């Protein structure tokens, strides 16, 4: 006998999502926390059902891994919004909902009479036919917000003109800037949409009314560029991209080293404080490499520092040499150790660094397995391993079920 399932943070919250790659993550984030997210698909299914790769590499709208990933815990209905019956069903669904999330090309829903302008608290046209839904919150995600045109765009173009790509790539600027992987240009708008929706829900608890939330994907990318933005806003200086490390106004030292097994390690900031030099020297000795390591005398000098001032190394050649020895020692070790051994070894002596894992290696790492990060989700009798919770709630845990089949929950329209 198992314990009764825990309460969910978003229990009882109903969200209607009009399927789109631009808002699928927003719906997933809510659904995995317990909201009843009903994803509305067009006849033939969401375009995401045609995206590669497929389970078993067999093209199949029920086997698209993109669909599986972004639509966990949701229910699916098929509605043809261009036809009267589908539009009426959509209105009825919306009248039962706390929120709508949509990222349709700007103007499409309005032209169908199915937008916030018609269905929201401040709308008018179609409301006579509906129970008033003063409490409705409408989340609109578009490229530039609702006051400007909504151009054709993809993850790549959002990251390009939104700013992130300028900072990503290689020291050699004849190599193009690089798009960071994983569809982050699509994610950013969804993440801000969920924050805004939660804030509007909090307000509704007090004020009793819903509102319109207008999210700009371009602005969301602009808000996710760190130093590139702050150097410009504060000092009108442009950063330049550098291999595997921060884009900065000046060229900095490399922070990635390739280890003996071919994998890479992000070395973080090398030792600066006396005890860090001591711990590094001790570990070199434990590994039986003390005689072989050419930097041990400088490491011993490093032990006398409270903290090396790395911002002013130019003015202090000895400190620069000592600081360099810490870095050189890590590179020396990288030539002799695999990336995992170096990662765990350095972290164990208090030096922050990170192995450059492929996604599948992170999920298999003992730490994340011990914390329950990879989860099995049942696919009609077959367990499939997914990345799990982005956050661990003690009272209302994250929990996911498989993405719905096309129109799997069509019955709920009969209610």
């Amino acid at each position: 006998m198992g314990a009764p399932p825990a309460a969910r943070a978003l229990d009882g919250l109903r969200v209607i999502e009009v399927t789109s790659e631009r808002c699928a993550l927003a719906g997933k984030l809510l659904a995995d926390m317990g909201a009843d997210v009903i994803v509305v698909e067009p006849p033939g299914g969401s375009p995401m059902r045609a995206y590669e790769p497929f389970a078993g590499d067999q093209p199949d709208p029920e086997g698209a891994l993109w669909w599986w990933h972004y639509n966990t815990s949701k229910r699916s209905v098929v509605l043809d919004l261009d036809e009267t019956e589908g539009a009426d069903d959509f209105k009825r669904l919306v009248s039962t909902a706390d929120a709508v999330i949509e990222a349709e090309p700007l103007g499409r829903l309005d032209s169908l009479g199915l937008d916030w302008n018609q269905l929201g608290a401040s709308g008018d046209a179609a409301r006579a036919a509906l129970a008033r839904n003063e409490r409705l919150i409408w989340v609109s995600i578009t490229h530039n917000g609702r006051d400007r045109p909504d151009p054709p765009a993809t993850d790549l173009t959002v990251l390009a003109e939104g700013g992130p790509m300028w900072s990503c790539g290689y020291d050699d600027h004849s190599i193009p800037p690089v798009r960071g992987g994983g569809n982050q240009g699509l994610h950013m708008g969804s993440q801000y949409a969920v924050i805004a929706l939660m804030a509007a829900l909090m307000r509704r608890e007090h004020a009793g009314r819903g509102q319109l939330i207008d999210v700009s994907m371009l602005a969301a990318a602009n808000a996710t560029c760190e130093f590139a933005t702050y150097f410009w806003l504060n000092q009108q200086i442009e950063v330049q991209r550098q291999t595997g490390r921060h884009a900065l106004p000046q060229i900095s030292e490399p922070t990635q080293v390739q280890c003996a097994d071919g994998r890479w390690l992000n070395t973080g900031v090398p030792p600066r404080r006396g005890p860090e030099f001591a711990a590094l020297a001790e570990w070199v000795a434990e590994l039986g490499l003390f005689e072989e390591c050419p930097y041990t005398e400088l490491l011993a000098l490093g032990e006398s520092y409270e903290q090396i001032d790395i911002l002013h190394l130019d003015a202090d050649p000895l400190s620069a040499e000592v600081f360099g020895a810490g870095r050189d020692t890590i590179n020396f070790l990288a030539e002799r150790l695999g990336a995992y051994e170096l990662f765990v070894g350095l972290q164990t002596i208090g030096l922050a660094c990170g192995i450059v894992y492929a996604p599948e290696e992170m999920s298999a790492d003992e730490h994340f397995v011990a914390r329950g990060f990879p989860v099995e989700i049942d696919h009609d009798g077959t367990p499939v391993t997914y990345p799990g919770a982005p956050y661990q709630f003690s009272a209302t845990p994250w929990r996911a079920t498989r993405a719905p089949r096309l129109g799997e929950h069509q019955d709920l329209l009969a209610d």
Partner: protein
Amino acid sequence: MIDPDHCPPNWPNPDEPGALAGIRICDFTGQLAGAGATKILAALGAEVIRIEDPANEGRWDILRGTQPFIGEHRGIEAGGSFNNHNAAKLGITLNLRDDRAKELLAELIAVSDAVTENFAAGVLERLGFGYEAQRALKPDIVYVSNCGFGADGPYAGFRSWGPIAQAVSGLTFQSGLPDLPPAGWGYSFMDHTGAYYMAMAILMALYHRRRTGEGQWVDLACIEAAGTLHGAASLDFTVNGRPARRDGMPDSNRSRSPAMVPHGVWACRGEDEWVTIAVRDDDDWQRFAAAVDRPWATDERWHRLAGRLAEEDRLERLIGEWTAQRGKAEAAELLVAAGVPAAPVLRPSERIDGDPRTSDWGMWVTAPHSSFGDTRVEGLPMRLSENDWAIGRAAPCLGEDNHYVLGEVLGHSADELAELAAAGVI
């Protein structure tokens, strides 16, 4: 619960409360991964009270006094990143080595809705203010901790910041070109994104509390949040056995999920000038071919995706010859007008001071700083029709709001506060 229309003293217009008016946050966050989360909540109207250590002048947050600096200013109030991440917040000082400061903290927790921090795992516990201690002070408190590896597990003692979270989670690996080292993200992408997940976690937990009266602890491991951001690549391994670490990968300027050809970044006229183009499907290809108006673009073999995939290298070379003769904006505009996704890779100067889509939106806010006058910070990429965000003030100077928080909110007299300040407690 404080008055649900309560606006913090630095809120620009008390007649128009933010969506989170009435929420008070006892905030230990710093840098971007933590401070970025509570900055969003502050801009949405929450009363975020940031606590700093007077003994080391708040230098635990290294961004307080590091570049980029606000104009010509220098010192612990002049860090431009700090100013950005802490705009709209209140700031107080508490020297928690002293029992009198601990008493003040206990009083503050008792009148707060949430406690937030991004220390290394266990730090707040060792200060005597772990979750159980918080609950004793405020039974329904929401506590959200954010650190790289999370609060428990074999690596709970490991240290992390953005680039390390990106490396361990797989994000760095997934950003690069074939036969080159990882390019990764050229900034602390996961500090931004970890902050987004932290903001969501705080709000979801507060919403649950509002409806049930139940508080809780959220253990946010930034690396786990990052591990959810690989899209279908994670399942391609667990379902199909196809690892991301394989020959020819990553190739992140091309697109295989979904398959799009052409899809990439091409050099344009000028130095370090680039345009991105994404042909989503065969219809896009027809529009693209008409727009570039080159004989090769009419090749029938390329009408279908399979044909373009088979000759992707050659196709990319030909497109490069076309883009090399054009400015990046010109090339992108021509393709977008034809209905094909395309965009220039914009420099910071171009997207901040040269793009009305961001400036008209209000992304670049002029916020008054108590020491330096007008400063520039980021706004939020969302608008709320009834309770929009606002940033009425830049980041607080060290201890700037001691009088409001410790005096007006907690009820201590000016004499008492003067004494505590003289003793180095605040």
